[in-house]
């Protein structure tokens, strides 16, 4: 028993080595996808802002049509860049909800006033909790979430014009 105890470091190292050996030479992808895809949205409930109602997990899992959830912030320049595309998505019938990360009500209002407001609901995620829960690696990111609240697709970075049809197709697929 005692002997076994002193062997533990060696065993731990062997496991680590095996793990690294298994990965050696495997190509690593540049884009890292959230491990949350295919899983339900974690529980959350955020206050609304700028006249919009807040956003919670219940809203997403209520059995409605699939929606887009856009993680954004007023301090993020690419978020301003993607605003017209988000508006285009909304104009094409997509329901777009926003989660404002580490932001203040005044700044969000200013941002929406300047760049337009495509959002149906907006949740204020003051501590950036949702980024961790969704497995986001930055802002902006956009998620397709189906009526049962399952995350089906993740779009990293800003939405460019050619991404709009892709996101619409993903919404269709999630129905």
């Amino acid at each position, binding site marked *: 028993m*005692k*002997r076994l105890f*002193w*062997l533990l*470091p*060696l065993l731990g*190292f*062997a496991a*680590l*080595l095996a*793990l*690294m*050996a*298994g*990965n*050696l*030479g*495997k190509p*690593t*992808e*540049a884009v*890292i*996808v*959230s*491990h949350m*895809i295919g899983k339900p949205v974690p529980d959350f409930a955020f206050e609304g802002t700028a006249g919009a109602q807040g956003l919670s997990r219940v809203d997403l899992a209520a059995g409605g049509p699939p929606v887009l959830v856009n993680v954004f912030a007023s*301090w*993020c*320049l690419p978020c301003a860049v993607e605003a017209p595309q988000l508006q285009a998505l909304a104009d094409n019938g997509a329901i777009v909800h926003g989660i404002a990360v580490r932001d203040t009500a005044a700044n969000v209002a200013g941002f929406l006033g300047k760049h337009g407001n495509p959002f149906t609901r907006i949740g204020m995620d003051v501590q*950036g909790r949702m*980024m*961790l829960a969704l*497995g986001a*690696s930055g802002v902006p990111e956009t998620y397709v979430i189906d009526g049962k609240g399952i995350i089906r697709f993740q779009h990293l970075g800003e939405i460019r014009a050619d991404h709009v049809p892709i996101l619409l197709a993903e919404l269709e697929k999630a129905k």
Partner: protein
Amino acid sequence: MIPELGHFALWLAAAAALLQSVAPTIGLWRDEEALSGLAVPAAVAQGLFTALAFAALTWAFVVSDFSVALVAANSHTMKPDMYLVTGVWANHEGSLLLWVLVMALAGAGVAVAPATLGPRFRARVLSVQGIVSLGFFAFLLFASNPFDRLIPAPTEGQGLNPLLQDLGLAVHPPLLYIGYVGLSVAFAFAVAGMLENVVGPAWAKATRPWVAGAWAMLTLGIALGSYWAYYELGWGGWWFWDPVENAALMPWLAATALLHSIAVVMKRDALRAWTLLLAVAAFSLSMMGTFIVRSGLLTSVHAFAVDPARGLFLMILMALYIGGALTIYAFAAGRVAEGRQFAAVSRESALVANNLLLTVILGVVLVGTMYPMALQAAGGAQISVGPPYFNMTIVPIVLVMAFLMGVAPLLGWRRSATGHLAARLLPAAVAAALAVVVALTLFGVRGIGALLGFGAAAWLAVASISILAKRGLTLNSAGMALAHLGVAVSILGATASGALQREALVAMRVGDAIQMGPWRAELMDVRPIAGPNWTAVEARLDVRRGGDSVAILRPQSRMFVAPAQETTESGRAGWWTGELYSVLGQPDGTGQWQVHLWFKPMVRLIWWGALLMAFGGLLALGGRVRALKPRRGVEMSGSPIPQAA
């Protein structure tokens, strides 16, 4: 010709390493002192030949000898002179040569330093060091030869990655390597200590200076890397929990724990097995860090030679060395026993708590770094573990550690009374409370984490200074007080720059201005300028506070000629603690420029603190080295009471 001489010197150094590892092994086994004594000249020869090889490679870089493949791939005649030299280690082969150079010099250092534990132990240590170097020489000569020729030679080189053409990054690798390799000495002492069964206070006393020196250099190296990332990468942050940063942090954490636990072995002859494990782990983690950086195993900003064959080579080396050391540990650790006992309230137990917390942080970092890989190995998707995970887990532990660091130095060894603590810690407690109140009222800080950070910094700072009051001013006590004070200063810097930071990201035309808190920044102009091997567009931001111009910020977007690559040069203006930090982004095509502006109060304290820590480590090292000198008539006892001057 000179590169060939360098190549030859490298082979001779490898031969010396072979002699250094084999002769003492056989000599100690057969009890032939003449044979085991060969280790000493072999180690010195290894040091000399490696230095010669390194000089040869440096010469090839300085004269831009593009017939050497490594020089052609990494240098350029237009490069400023200083970077011709530092370019030697800004690549895989050259940095590995630097690694073995530091290792060989450390070996020579052990060989010529007084053998306080006797010639037999020194021979054993040198044989372990020889075995470790031998593997790295093999890796250099067979898989990463820096002297490979390129025929026909090109007339011009491909240039050095512009991000690396920077003074901070020029000295960052040597410092890190001195740290890593210093830990290899501790590793050799640990393995030899187990084989020779001499682990005890005298062993700890002989090992500790190496650990302290390595730790100080590692601290400086990491701090410099962090400072470089801060001003060069233009992200406004100073620590990104990037896998490669973690790879350097892990040996540092292990070395920090080792530095403290080895003191317990030295003074109280307790915690032997644990200290041995830490000594093995610290260098093992250094090797793993090197391996991770050079194998392409993890995605990171620190792109290095991504070559699976080299990865396999390094992995076999690691398996041999770490696996070998841990196997010896499994057999020997039971034998060395834990040494003497101590009470629950004592300096020892506080140091054990410190060690446990450091180990928890180490575990958190290790899991965070390896988890993406484990998940991928299990067939899952590729993910990355980001700052939120690390910050949420590590910040609370650091706060608890800061608290303990204030208390521990005031406890006595073995069994401590607690009656004196309240009085001794009163100033620290008052300072902590004051800091929280000031942060809350004057600065309007609201986050509980930030408030605790301010409190912890004040607590630890005052408690560290009061160490001196208790123990008197000796090199050791001053070193410890300074290092702990450094931690407090770094905590203050990290907390304040995070909690009080202001940030603005705007698109502005020349003539536009933005208001950020009390600062008003006006974009005066954007114009092209030229450097030795780059051209840039430079913005001029006039920052005013209350109407007075306080600073002109000059952020640049630089375009290097060879290789063609763009870098951001942050425009900064600061005073001794805080700074204004600006980054010039891309033009949007309509005459607007993207400008990112930060105010980061006290951010510089993060690195000032690290400097204090390293300096404290070196002071304590000075104390140890002095104590190592044999002084007739004065028996260096292990008593914690400083000797009267």
